[in-house]
């Protein structure tokens, strides 16, 4: 009964979605206020319908209703409750439904928080979101129905992929999807602007908080995914330039560019056409990111099992959304005229440079990711593009971006004095150069540059902040007051930039990592990067739905016991799958990392790593996302806030 209710609610969602797409868009076209007024209610209704559908699926999973095919294939009665819930989005059908749920949530959010928008713009934004929602809900309903029944029901389910039974991964899809799908809102704003044929500074101000929110989630989602790959897959690395990873990096790169170019629209009414194109491009990358990998078109080592029959529907849908929006862009973009002009050396100029470099990086990543596909289709050659390609192309483009990042926020709008900005940064440059020289003796060219860049960005952010609060030039208390008075947007920028610096330092330090693969018998010691790893014991352990083999390793430095690592190999009997459980001990500056491989002749094959600054990679991403949230709290970005401020100043 419950699954049928979910199925019905999903169908209801599609019907409401059709109404949400047609009624407000028609109303905005005709200028009919009554039709436009229907938009928020329809968006909330669609969210409610798809929400009920999702809750029904989650409920069926929690009560282990194995008469539902999806649950019989991906769940098991022995599974802990948390994985029964998170397993709802841990498989193909459930994740598509979850994707639809977030899209309708975006529509509902615009309906709830968009009261300050002009009614025709709001109607069009909600209508476009409804149109996109209908496409993907139809896909869920027709091609990947999560509520298909199975008769007779099996006694027990086939269990969830053990690799996904992990608290980190449980939270990864919701955050990442919210990031991906969140870019649907700037996309809808861009399409609405094209339909209206008008973009002004207000449009830039409305679009920025949505972009910022999506960007925060995407940053967090990518970091969480990379962290999961680091500790759960046990490969010892954090980024493998795999198509799945690249697919999430692409919308992040263009989304970051969008964040900066929307600022130019807001402040200076320039770069309008470009910003619209970026909004379309970012959502297109989000869509292809989620679906190209799933449809089996791109070959990935950590994709779900996929079904090529579904690929056709998805491809058609992608073609319709991306092609349709680009066509609309080609037809309507000339209507939008640029007004603001600026000198090349100015804040706008720096933001343009940021956009050029970010989009160049996105272009090479897209080329490397898609080239195997085209080589196969056009040249009939089967090949893969490996990490060396991405390392050799991305980092040289990233270095000038990092170099410009510290200076950009110090430039003034319209026309700036580069020399003056640089003189404020002399001490940051000096320290960065010193760190670079210090590292040059220990690392290769690229890591050395990266370390210098990391220092330059972090110190540049500090210098910018110091300059704004006039640190050491006015009494400290006055500086403190100035700090409190700073706009949250400025503060957020500084925090996010510094966060990127921290991440870069973590990535650069990967070149200093030591690792070794050794065969140890109990009692034997391996020396890795100045640390002594001693295997003391090998034993068995049993978990709720798996059996584990555990290696106990004492780690010593200069004879002092630092920690005991107990990496495991877990065998899941239901799925006949073995997974490795890496164990990591961190002190914030370095990770001690151990993985248990196979056993032979009474000994264990171990992979041991000493990774310097590894936690900084994710810590930096967290700081970046936090910077985004601080910026999101800016008065100026909260819808309706400017009106309130005006209301307060008038009586004064």
């Amino acid at each position, binding site marked *: 009964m419950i699954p049928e209710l979910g199925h019905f609610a999903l169908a209801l969602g599609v019907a409401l979605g059709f109404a949400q797409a047609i009624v407000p868009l028609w109303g905005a076209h005709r200028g009919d206020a009554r039709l436009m007024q229907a938009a928020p209610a329809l968006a909330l209704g669609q969210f409610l319908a798809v929400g009920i559908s999702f809750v029904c699926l989650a409920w069926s999973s929690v009560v282990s209703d194995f008469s539902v095919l999806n649950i019989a294939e991906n769940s098991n009665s022995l599974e802990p409750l948390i994985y029964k819930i998170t397993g709802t989005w841990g498989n193909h059908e459930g994740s598509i439904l979850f994707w639809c749920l977030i899209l309708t949530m975006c529509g509902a959010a615009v309906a709830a928080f968009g009261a300050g928008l002009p009614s025709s713009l709001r109607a069009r934004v909600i209508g476009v979101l409804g149109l996109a929602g209908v496409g993907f809900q139809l896909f869920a309903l027709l091609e990947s129905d999560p509520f298909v029944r199975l008769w007779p029901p099996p006694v027990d389910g086939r269990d969830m992929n053990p690799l996904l039974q992990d608290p980190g991964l449980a939270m990864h899809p919701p955050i990442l999807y919210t990031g991906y799908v969140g870019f649907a809102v700037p996309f809808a704003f861009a399409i609405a602007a094209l339909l209206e044929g008008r973009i002004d500074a207000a449009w830039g101000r409305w679009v920025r908080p949505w972009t910022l929110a999506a960007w925060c989630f995407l940053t967090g989602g990518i970091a969480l995914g990379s962290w999961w790959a680091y500790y759960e897959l046990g490969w010892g690395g954090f980024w493998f330039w795999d198509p799945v990873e690249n697919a999430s990096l692409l919308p992040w790169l263009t989304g970051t560019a969008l964040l900066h170019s929307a600022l130019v629209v807001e402040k200076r009414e320039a770069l309008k056409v470009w910003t619209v194109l970026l909004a379309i491009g970012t959502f297109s990358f989000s869509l292809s990111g989620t679906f190209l990998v799933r449809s089996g078109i791109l070959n990935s080592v950590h994709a779900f099992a996929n079904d090529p029959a579904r690929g056709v529907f998805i491809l058609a849908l992608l073609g319709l959304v991306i092609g349709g929006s680009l066509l609309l862009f080609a037809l309507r973009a000339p209507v939008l005229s640029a007004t603001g002009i600026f000198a090349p050396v100015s804040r706008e100029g720096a933001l343009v440079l940021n956009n050029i470099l970010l989009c160049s990086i996105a272009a090479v990543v897209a080329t490397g990711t898609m080239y195997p596909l085209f080589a196969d289709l056009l040249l009939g050659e*089967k090949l893969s593009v490996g990490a060396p390609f991405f390392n050799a192309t991305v980092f040289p483009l990233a270095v000038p971006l990092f170099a410009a990042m510290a200076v950009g926020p110090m430039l003034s709008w319209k026309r700036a004095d580069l020399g003056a900005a640089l003189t404020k940064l002399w001490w940051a440059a000096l320290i960065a150069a010193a760190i670079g020289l210090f590292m040059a003796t220990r690392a290769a060219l690229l890591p050395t540059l990266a370390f210098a860049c990391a220092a330059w960005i972090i110190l540049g952010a500090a210098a910018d902040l110091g300059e704004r609060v006039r640190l050491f030039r006015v009494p400290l208390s006055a500086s403190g007051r100035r700090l409190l008075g700073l706009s949250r947007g400025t503060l957020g920028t500084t925090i996010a930039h510094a966060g990127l610096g921290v991440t870069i330092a973590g990535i650069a330090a990967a070149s200093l990592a030591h690792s070794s693969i050794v065969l140890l018998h109990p009692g034997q010691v391996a020396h890795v990067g100045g640390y002594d790893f001693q295997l003391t014991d090998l034993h068995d352990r049993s978990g709720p739905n798996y059996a584990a083999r555990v290696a106990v390793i004492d780690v010593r430095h200069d004879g002092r016991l630092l920690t005991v690592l107990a990496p495991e190999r877990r065998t899941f009997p239901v799925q006949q799958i*073995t997974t490795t459980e890496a164990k990591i001990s961190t002190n914030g500056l370095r990770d001690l990392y151990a993985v248990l491989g196979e056993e032979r002749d009474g000994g264990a094959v171990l992979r041991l790593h000493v990774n310097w600054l590894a936690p900084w990679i994710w810590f930096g991403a967290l700081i970046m996302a936090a910077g985004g949230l601080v910026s999101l709290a800016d008065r100026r970005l909260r819808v309706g806030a400017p009106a309130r401020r005006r209301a307060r100043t008038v009586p004064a």
Partner: protein
Amino acid sequence: MTRKRRRLLLVLACGAGVATATGLGLSAFSDSVAFFVSPTEIAAKAPAPGRMLRLGGLVAAGSVHKTLIDGRPAATFSVTDGKTAVTVRYVGILPDLFREGQGVVAMGTLAADGSFRAQEVLAKHDETYMPKDVADALKKSGHWNPAEGPPPPAATWDTMAVKQAGG
């Protein structure tokens, strides 16, 4: 500066960005593109030693030997597409899903003696999924014609006859 000059400057800057990206891309491409090969292709026309390759196929039953190379744990095994087999040497930990008779993709180079030195071994399978490279190798060797239905079940791969060749 006039408006026209400014626009020219902007276009030039964009051009420089794209040109750098293209240049870097092209120069990095030839070194880091790994071509996919099947064991039969290696036997027919051996690629130059040192060229990065992706070798796809099935791990021949009974061919896995665990050894030590320079005191480090290593493994040798044969990768077959049912027609020919290539010996692969790999120093490191084999992935969890690595099994005899199952699909595997090895990234590495061909040594002078005709054996394959893998730097990375990827294995992935379940009842419904076969790595694309492995499926392609099976199709090329004539062991599986997609028009005739689904790929042969994993159980039959184990007993697949192997004619030793290429090392």
